């Protein structure tokens, strides 16, 4: 259950059966219920057919039907390990938080760092910058790949960066160059967060922001590491949650 989207995934016989996503909105509990029902319908299943429901990203109070819960970093580690068994570091950049976890070959989380205090290292930052730049969120990533000049932003704070983007536009800096500076800025934040944990290869990147090619490019350049990025990075947490009963015999708390 993310701050922006609720994701539901059904895992059956060693593979992903189906998954769905909807905005969390003001009522995350209702949103989750709705996606859950939708995903069940799509799979032709009923609640009774599900052996175990695990919630992550929020407590059971928002998902009373869940049998157990798992921490977001624990879920990231398990999900990342399932997709990329060689991954020892998983980085998850979501709408309002960013986190990195180190895990072992079994996908067990060993250590983690998290930023949930400051918007500057999260998807919210890119959303705000896209608004300031007057480009759509889906466009800002590809746009940044067309950058010709390397400029850097002074401001870290999202609020101050908004004004900086506006003045860069006034100075006739190309939108592509600004877009790249924006992604370099958030990549720097994520890189320093991850370095605090210690980077061990391979490194997998997940969370909704991993869909942004501009960000992936910037982070790879900053870390000087080729990142493993799944096709649907926003579902890795849900995947990891679905895997917990299998890994722990359902005792995961």
């Amino acid at each position: 259950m993310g701050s922006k989207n609720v994701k539901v995934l059904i895992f059956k016989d060693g593979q992903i059966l189906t998954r769905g996503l909807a905005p969390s909105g003001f009522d995350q509990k209702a949103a989750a219920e709705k996606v859950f029902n939708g995903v069940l319908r799509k799979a032709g299943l009923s609640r009774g057919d599900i052996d175990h429901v695990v919630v992550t990203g929020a407590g059971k109070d928002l998902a009373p039907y869940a049998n157990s819960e798992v921490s977001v970093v624990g879920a990231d580690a398990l999900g990342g390990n399932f997709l990329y068994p060689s991954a020892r570091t998983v980085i998850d950049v979501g709408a309002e938080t960013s986190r990195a976890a180190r895990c072992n070959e079994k996908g067990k989380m060993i250590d983690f760092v998290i930023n949930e205090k400051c918007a500057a290292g999260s998807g919210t930052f890119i959303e705000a910058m896209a608004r300031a730049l007057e480009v759509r969120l889906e466009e800002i990533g590809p746009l940044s790949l067309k950058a010709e000049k390397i400029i850097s932003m002074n401001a870290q704070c999202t609020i101050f960066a908004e004004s900086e983007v506006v003045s860069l536009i006034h100075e006739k800096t190309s939108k592509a160059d600004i877009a790249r500076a924006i992604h370099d800025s958030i990549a720097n934040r994520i890189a320093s967060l991850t370095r605090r944990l210690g980077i061990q290869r391979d490194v997998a990147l997940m969370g909704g922001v991993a869909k942004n090619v501009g960000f992936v490019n910037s982070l790879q350049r900053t870390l000087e590491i080729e990142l493993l990025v799944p096709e649907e990075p926003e579902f890795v947490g849900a995947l990891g949650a679905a895997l917990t009963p299998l890994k722990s015999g359902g005792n995961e708390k």
Partner: protein
Amino acid sequence: MKKQFWRWPEYRRTVPDKDWTRAEVVTAGVDVGAVSSKAAIMIDGELYAYSIMRTGASSPDSANKAMDWALEGTGMKLGHIQYIVGTGYGRVNVPFANKAITEITCHARGANYIWGPTVRTILDMGGQDCKAIRCDEKGKVTNFLMNDKCAAGTGRGIEVIADLLSVPIEEVGSMSLVVEKEPKPVSSTCVVFAKSEALELLRKGWPKEMVLAAYCSAMASRIAELLRRVGMERDFVITGGISKNVGIVKRLEDIISIKALPMKKEFDPIIAGAIGAGLFAKEFYEKERKDA
């Protein structure tokens, strides 16, 4: 056009009963801040006229405009001013300045002028940063701490909330005090997240006053932390735009259990930096004249 609730009134003032034509030394300080630009004209080391206006996209333009406006109606021309010191965020971009000095140095000096030599701690709450400054009896800086990395605890943060709640920025403080019971402070530090939190509170049916109280209270604790780290010594004064926000000042005073010296009617606390710069200008001018 949407009403801009963050907009505060710009104004200029000439101190009555003063004749600049009889002055021996005419100097000025120009403080180009991230949000507001201030110009203070000093005659023989006393405040004569000043202006406060919003900083535009260009620092040189803002400095020119603030200076022109301070001069307006006085009969004085820029050429009459013998020495000008630039300060603030845009200090190196004051086209007509003879010298640039950091705003921390200038604020301490200006506070010493406004409130007198007993001032030891100055809190400058500005548009895009917040500084806690310690100084001696001459207004010389002995230590300081500042937050200029994050909008939380700065005027910019209040602008965001004022806009969100459609409350004119000058009323944020007084409105936040109209609550029967002090609510829990907003838990998010980040202004972006605090904005979402405020929206959520409104949706729960909180009146605007309560949301503002929760926000001002969070800001006060954050600023108190900065003061605690720099170490507090009396007398304590507050300069900068947020010094006019009674909601934050009152809560801050409650947290640190020290009252700030009251504002002086004849000196807007926003121009402390410009005044300090104008005083340094006088010193430099006199030194240059002596050396020449």
